């Protein structure tokens, strides 16, 4: 029994980080209606950034999370303002091609600079765990989950209480109305893209504590992010977090109870069930 509880706890903790990763995708789509097919690649860039800083300066990844998030915010803002903005009104397949090209360029760049080998950060507490009532909790996973929850909370507070956040929500609700009242929609779209990139960058820092980074993992995480946001509801922030938790737990339990190599199959099964029963996602709104 305790083993099952440990597995579920580990799945929930990992799911929190997945949720933060997928949140960026959901935020970008919810406001700009652009699907960021370079999502996983941006995360890998964040992972490599923290790897380099850790090796050069010896800084702990948690300390670097706001820095990496800020750096990716700037990158995301510039990308949207300089390139993606021109495609807002274009057909979806052109948007897909653009962001796919960005994804390929990012993967190739990381491959050229860092090579194909898997790398990770070494932290003193990498092997630590807590025992709480007989349940073992991995310290790194717990800290990563707390960081993810903190990130989600900060984002929620931003959208709820800041002027810019409210403006972005206004754009998402009614773009024409937002323009009529004088909001700079283009700038707000760029800020949103930056926020999405910052989310995925922060998630990348936290994920690097759990998995090794190499250029080829980007596509897997892009796909995972899509599954999570579709399950949770595209454009829904709580949906992204819920989707992350569900996928994290389903991977953990299915791997333990059935076969570890079938973990991904259950995530896809969950996606299919949601699409059949509630196509807008668990917490999404009908179109």
């Amino acid at each position, binding site marked *: 029994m305790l*083993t099952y509880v*440990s*597995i579920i706890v*580990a799945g929930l903790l*990992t799911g929190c980080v997945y949720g933060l990763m997928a949140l960026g995708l959901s935020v970008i789509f919810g406001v700009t209606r652009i699907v960021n097919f370079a999502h996983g690649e941006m995360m890998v860039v964040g992972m490599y950034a923290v790897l380099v800083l850790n090796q050069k300066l010896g800084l702990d990844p948690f300390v670097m999370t706001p820095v990496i998030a800020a750096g990716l915010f700037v990158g995301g803002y510039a990308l949207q303002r300089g390139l993606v903005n021109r495609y807002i009104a274009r057909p979806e397949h052109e948007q897909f091609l653009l962001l796919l090209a960005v994804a390929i360029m990012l993967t190739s760049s990381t491959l050229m600079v860092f*090579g*194909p*080998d*898997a790398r*990770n950060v*070494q932290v003193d507490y*990498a*092997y*630590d*765990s807590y*025992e709480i009532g007989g349940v*073992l909790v*991995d*310290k*790194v996973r717990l800290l990563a989950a707390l960081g993810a929850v903190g990130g989600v909370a900060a984002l929620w507070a931003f959208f709820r209480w800041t002027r810019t956040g409210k403006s972005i929500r206004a754009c998402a609700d009614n773009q024409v109305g937002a323009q009529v009242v004088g909001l700079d929609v283009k700038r707000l779209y760029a800020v949103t893209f930056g926020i999405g990139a910052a989310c995925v960058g922060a998630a990348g820092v936290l994920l690097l504590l*759990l*998995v*090794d980074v*190499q250029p*080829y*993992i980007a596509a*897997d995480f892009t796909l995972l992010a899509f599954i999570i946001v579709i399950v949770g509801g595209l454009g829904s922030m709580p949906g992204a977090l819920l989707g992350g938790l569900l996928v994290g737990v389903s*991977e*953990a339990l299915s*791997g*333990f109870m059935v*076969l*570890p*190599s079938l*973990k991904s199959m259950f995530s896809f099964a969950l996606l299919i069930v949601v699409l059949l029963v509630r196509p807008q996602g668990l917490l999404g709104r009908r179109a």
Partner: protein
Amino acid sequence: MRHRLDRRAFGRGAAATGAWLAAGAWRRARAQPVPLRLGVVLPRSGYEALIGQGCQRGYDIAVPILRDMGYAVELMNADTESKPDVARTQAEKLIREGANMLSGAWDSGQTAALAQVSEQHGVPLVINIGADPKITEQGYRYVFRNFPTAVMLASGALSLIGDLFEATGKTPKTAVLMVVNDTFGQAAQNAFSVLIPKLGMPFRLVETIPYDAQARDLSVEVAKAKAAGAELHLAVTRLNDGILMLREMVKQRYEPMGVISPGAPGFYERQFIKTLGKYAEYCFSNNAWMDPNQELTKTVETVFAKTFPEDPFDLNVGFSFEAVLIAADAHRRAGSVNAQALVEALRATNIGKRVMIGGAIRFDAKGQNVDNRLASLQIRNGRPTVVLPAANAEAKPVFPVPGWSQRT
């Protein structure tokens, strides 16, 4: 009588000298064999890159060492990107570019692709490392393997496990097996399921846990292994997943009597030891290994240490060197680069002075060397140390191993 050296005489003398020199050069050129062009196909990028690059170092140092021994080999290198389909296309490309022989590819799936290409094109293949038994069970005429099959590795590794229990007087009753779910892992798993009862091993396999070769996280798999409650942990891993597995075992405070890798890569790799530090200590790896008593081993190790001072001298290097030695030896005896002559020479191979532990390198009717032998290595003070068989041992084995919290 005085002889005057005029222009005609000088010209005649120069022409005669030139003709004599040219005749000598022609004779010398005719005496030198055409070098063997060996196409080397390895995973030098992708998830097996670290190991593929290790093998490449073995091929690279073989050329100058064998040149000094009178062999003539040139390498043509290709990268499989750790994918069988790329291995196939790269092998075909090397053949189009003039490779007389192929060698590679470390990974069993990629090696199987090479074997098919080799057979289709009638170009001999010398396998450096690749353990799937099926590769030499297809009736191929052009494929030669100097590496033990998964069955031989499993059988030899299990025998050494029995020797370990005998040497230490401690015998676990149950074991769990975590196995990477690729061509090699599946072959090993099948071999163990047959050999454990057949060899009368004293433990029972209570759980077998396959996992994805490219898994990013093995927490669930290790939790399952811990829940099985077995006394001994057997692991058929690669390098990265071996590291992930050990890390999770420490985090989950899963402390079996010992962790043994029977015939698999990973545990003896320098990256494994460097990344895990004290937690890599006392891990066992039962594998083919270099024979410290062979003169050629000492020569190769010395040259390797000078050429690649930061890199490990391990079985990837040893078997890759031997692959070039086998190819070059066959080429010298064949006296040509003709494929049929090379194949006949390979079939007649008999190399006593070698690098790896075992008898002389010879191939049976299926192209398999059946006389490689295994050693049991235990990581001690950050180094893979031979602990069995006793005749080759550098230290006594430690079993059961200290718990994670007792490591310093």
